[in-house]
């Protein structure tokens, strides 16, 4: 084979680099090999420092077949020498590929098709409506009250308590705004509050969802009857085989760890976050900033998404993951302020 180096060439190279005669170099190589062999015979183990170790392994008797005739034969139990490269050699050889990392590509488990009745109702309806017809007036009122319910159920930890408190405040504020829009006489005042809300926009993240609501044209009747949670500027995405939230989030935002946003826009805490069925239609909520430059509103949504994921994990008994996402929520919450 062309990509093989002969023993003579190795000896020559060795004598060239060290300055010893070829004879001496060959004597050395022979002695080293003999040493390794002797040690293998004696102890069943041998090593060449910085290169690798050899080990004698027992191979059990097994059935094989003659590759020429296909005739079954019994391969008797025997020993063979295996080689394990050491780290230095492994890394040197693999240098070209060292930067690559393995990545999650999806889920083999069956996804439980939404357990709670409310969730499945929303789930089915969300596939039906034409996103153009429902448009933005459908707004976020529905998902918000929905979210609040979820959080109220899982208020075991202090973190979730805080989140619930925030959501209650937001809910009350939005209810107040809705009442105002109901009254036609108040329309003028509403526009003024709109501008006020958008000025608050930059300062307070907690008020964020409220201002978003008032900015879009309100239609309380529509918002009341429909349970579709079409997100603002949201795209619908169909899950392909073996895809997972991470992958979808990376495709959508360029950041895999934004996936709680997608989870929050589509599911509740009764859905296992580690399950996703092929063909599911997912809404991909749009960011108000860019993925590299998030606004306070985005951070607030990420935080509430992570809180939801955390409580969903908790719901399914995955406490370590729940803690991890609670930490994320905490971090994003701090960023949103």
């Amino acid at each position, binding site marked *: *084979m062309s*990509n*093989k*180096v*002969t*023993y003579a060439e*190795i000896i020559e*190279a*060795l004598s060239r*680099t*060290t300055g*010893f005669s070829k004879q001496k*170099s060959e004597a*050395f*190589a022979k*002695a*080293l090999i*003999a*040493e*390794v*062999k002797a*040690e*293998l*015979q004696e102890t069943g183990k*041998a*090593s*060449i*420092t*910085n*290169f*690798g170790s050899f080990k*004698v392994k027992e191979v059990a008797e097994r059935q094989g077949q003659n590759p020429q005739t296909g005739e079954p034969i019994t391969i008797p139990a*025997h*020993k*063979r*020498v*295996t*080689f394990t*490269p050491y780290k*230095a*050699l*492994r890394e*040197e*050889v*693999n*240098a*070209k*590929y060292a930067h*690559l990392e*393995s*990545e*999650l*590509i*999806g*889920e*083999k*488990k069956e996804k439980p098709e939404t357990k709670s009745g409310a969730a499945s109702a929303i789930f089915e309806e969300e596939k039906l409506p034409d996103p153009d017809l429902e448009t933005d007036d459908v707004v976020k009122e529905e998902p918000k009250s929905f979210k609040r319910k979820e959080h109220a159920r899982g208020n075991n930890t202090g973190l979730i308590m805080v989140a619930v408190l925030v959501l209650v405040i937001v809910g009350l504020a939005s209810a107040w705004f809705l009442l105002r829009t109901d009254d036609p006489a108040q329309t003028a005042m509403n526009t003024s509050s709109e501008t006020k809300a958008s000025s608050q926009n930059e300062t307070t993240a907690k008020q964020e969802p409220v201002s978003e609501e008032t900015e879009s044209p309100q239609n309380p009747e529509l918002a009341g009857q429909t349970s579709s949670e079409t997100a603002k500027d949201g795209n619908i995405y169909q899950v392909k085989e*073996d895809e*997972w939230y991470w992958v979808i989030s990376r495709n959508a935002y360029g950041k895999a760890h934004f996936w709680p946003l997608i989870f929050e826009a589509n599911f509740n805490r009764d859905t296992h976050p*580690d399950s996703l069925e092929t063909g599911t239609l997912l809404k991909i909520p749009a960011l108000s900033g860019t993925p590299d430059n998030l606004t306070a509103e985005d951070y607030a949504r990420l935080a509430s998404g992570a809180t939801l994921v955390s409580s969903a994990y908790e719901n399914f008994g995955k406490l370590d993951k729940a803690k991890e996402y609670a930490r994320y929520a905490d971090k994003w919450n701090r960023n949103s302020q």
Partner: protein
Amino acid sequence: MTKTEVLKKLAEQLDLTQADTEKLYDSFVDGATTLLAMNKGFTLPGLGSFHSEVRAEHRSYNPHYKQMMMIPPKKVVHFNQSSTLKAEINEENDEQ
């Protein structure tokens, strides 16, 4: 057996100083490593042959995440025992 022990023994056998033996040893290992990194295989008579191969990208189940993962390509060293070594090892087996 440690490297120092091996060096001591080899130095005695070859009638060299230990420092010289170490120089030979290190450049031998270094040369072998470089060859493998350069995709060149080689054979050590009586021991076996070494070559490196690219293990292709493949899917594998990660029991920690309980999910399938895409394992990136990796270059690994392969060793094939020589027939003489095989015979010697198994001969010893029969004697016992």
